[in-house]
């Protein structure tokens, strides 16, 4: 008895596999497609080589003054020389370790929240949320514990951008949640107040809000009481942002099936306990990606404080580019600022996509 032995498989035809086949299918499947491919290649050829030439090949990397930029590409010396100003603004250079320490504390303190196996995350997270701002304020502003005080007018650069964005989102979250609950309330007076508040802030641009907080807020306060510029901007940002957060949270509240509300009521829970123990934990989990997206929008919007004369990253760059010692450096400066903003925003948007996948506990059919 002999067993049948199969012949070895023939290799697939050359036209069906490999680079050639992929190109045939994806780039040259029809005459229109071929034309589009050629057009795209032309576009890339038009943009990429000059960009590389400018940014890397002909760029100047070493030196201390504009005179050192002899090649006709980008002059990155400018960025190197002004890097401190772009990151910290006019924060005294011998005290900049305090800013670094604040950032490191945030990174180390928040790290356990991102590790899946750490227990008691909610308690830890709340404690962190309460403790950290106090610590950060003490470190950044000083004036206590033997730390030299640094006025907020000296804060600037990327640090100021991060401070405004973080305070904005942390301050806006509780207010936004309350507004969202109010908007879905069955009490007409509460609902009308919340809807008016939300729609008002959503209907006006942030610039006018900042203008208002800088010129009108002093008029609203009792005589003799005054806030510094940064705090005024922050109040404006928080009020503005809370309206957007409220709309995101409302989306989550609406997505919770009615059965959950009824079940909570059937258990004998009152309004606040039903919301706090049953509805909000589910709703907030649903809207985390939405909140991250709002944060990205806020992060980009912080650049508007330029209008009321705060020196965030963008304004520091604008200021430095107007320096007579570094004339004609606008392009390098703005490209650098754009890169920093891009890294933050792109990173956060990827993180929000990752969260969306991770938090999706399979309600989708």
């Amino acid at each position, binding site marked *: 008895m002999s067993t049948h032995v199969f012949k070895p498989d023939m290799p697939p035809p050359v036209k069906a596999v490999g680079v050639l086949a992929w190109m045939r299918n994806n780039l040259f499947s029809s005459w229109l497609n071929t034309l589009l491919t050629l057009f795209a290649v032309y576009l890339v050829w038009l943009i990429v080589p000059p960009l590389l030439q400018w940014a890397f090949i002909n760029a100047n990397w070493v030196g201390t003054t504009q005179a050192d930029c002899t090649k006709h590409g980008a002059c990155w010396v400018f960025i190197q020389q002004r890097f401190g100003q772009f990151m910290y603004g006019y924060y005294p250079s011998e005290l900049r370790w305090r800013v670094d320490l604040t950032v490191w504390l945030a990174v180390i303190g928040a790290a356990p929240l991102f590790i899946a196996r750490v227990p008691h995350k909610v308690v830890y997270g709340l404690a962190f949320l309460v403790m950290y701002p106090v610590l950060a304020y003490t470190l950044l502003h000083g004036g206590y514990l033997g730390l030299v005080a640094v006025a907020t007018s000296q804060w600037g650069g990327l640090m100021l951008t991060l401070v405004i964005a973080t305070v904005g989102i942390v301050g806006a979250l509780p207010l936004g949640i309350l507004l969202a609950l109010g908007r879905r309330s069955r009490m007409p007076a509460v609902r009308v107040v919340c809807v008016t508040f939300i729609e008002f802030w959503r209907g006006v641009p942030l610039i006018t809000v900042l203008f208002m907080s800088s010129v009108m807020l002093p008029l609203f306060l009792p005589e003799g009481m005054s806030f510094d510029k940064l705090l005024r901007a922050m109040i404006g940002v928080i009020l503005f942002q809370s309206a957007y957060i409220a709309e995101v949270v409302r989306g989550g509240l609406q997505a919770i099936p009615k059965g959950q509300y009824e079940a909570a009521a059937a258990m004998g829970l009152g309004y606040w306990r039903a919301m706090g123990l049953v509805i909000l934990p589910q709703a907030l989990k649903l809207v985390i990606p939405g909140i991250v997206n709002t944060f990205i929008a806020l992060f980009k919007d912080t650049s*508007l404080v330029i209008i009321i004369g705060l020196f965030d990253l963008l304004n520091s760059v604008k200021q430095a580019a107007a320096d007579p010692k570094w004339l004609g450096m606008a392009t390098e400066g703005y490209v650098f600022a754009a890169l920093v903003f891009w890294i933050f925003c792109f990173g956060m948007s990827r993180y929000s996509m990752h969260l969306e996948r991770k938090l999706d506990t399979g309600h989708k059919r």
Partner: protein
Amino acid sequence: MQNKIGAPKGFSLSDPRVRAWLFQIITVVAVLGLGWYLFHNTQTNLQHRGITSGFDFLERSAGFGIAQHLIPYTESDSYSRVFVIGLLNTLLVTFIGIILATVLGFIVGVARLSPNWMISKLATVYVETFRNIPPLLQILFWYFAVFLTLPGPRGSINFGDTFFISNRGLNMPGASVAEGFWPFVGSLVVAVIAIVLMVRVANKRFEETGEPFHKFWVGLALFLAIPGLCALLIGSPLHWEVPQLKGFNFVGGWVLIPELLALTLALTIYTAAFIAEIVRSGIRSVSHGQTEAARSLGLREGPTLRKVIIPQALRVIIPPLTSQYLNLAKNSSLAAGIGYPEMVSLFAGTVLNQTGQAIEVIAITMSVYLAISISISLLMNWYNKRIALIER
């Protein structure tokens, strides 16, 4: 404190209705109280600073020049005219921006879904690059790093001796009304009426006999032929004046100032990235079964797209598209960063500084944006309702 279950009598805090009333009264009193407190503070502060409130300042003469005004303006004109100029400039940027961003956004959105690898990757890079950079930064970049570094009028970039781009902006031929203008407008009206009639007749015939009619091509022919004939017979409707380089600047024609160019370009590029994503998700939301069903009914590729895919995709696209239009209108206020004379930089900036009427000026500015927001969303809601799915 005991109540019979189901029939609480009198005043009791455990009655939900009583609590609801109490809660609402507290809210209203708190809001009114806060309002009164702020109003009172403002009154006292204004008195102490010697500022008279009121809108009388609008009639005073402004006394400063404006780089771009769509209506005639001299320095002796009043602040109310300055307000109108700022409003028109805001609307101009919003209008141009919405049109350009929609066109670019649809192209990029469709390109992202293209089976062509190169095209879809290019579109992805575009979207991911521009939506992650703050719009104000993009505006400053185009203004300070691009338009202001262009050569002056003498070394301007020349497009066929009719369009010139320099650091003074874009100089282009300007049109003025010629003798054939009003007959031309009349012929346009006639053409539109003819097209409407043609479409009605064609639709009626199609419903009765099933015979199709080339509505689009006949319509296009009517639209081109009637006004064209009119222009040939009576004379050109517009005079075109080409800009000429005289001395150090251009004379004649229209000029788009660099602030306007930078602002429109940046807002278009930024908003188009978001519109592209909306268009992409809208088209993706139409299930493939719809395409297959259309094919099995014998529709070709064009009609499948026009009559099956796009109407369903639009339903998903319209609501988020509306909020992008609103964002663009609000983002036009970023012009304050480069000094394009629109509502915020002209009115809330210059006028506020000159008059010191902070409350009135900010209130007017905010109401303008609220009005723009409300009208755009009403318009789009109306359109949305018209195309929404009518369920059984």
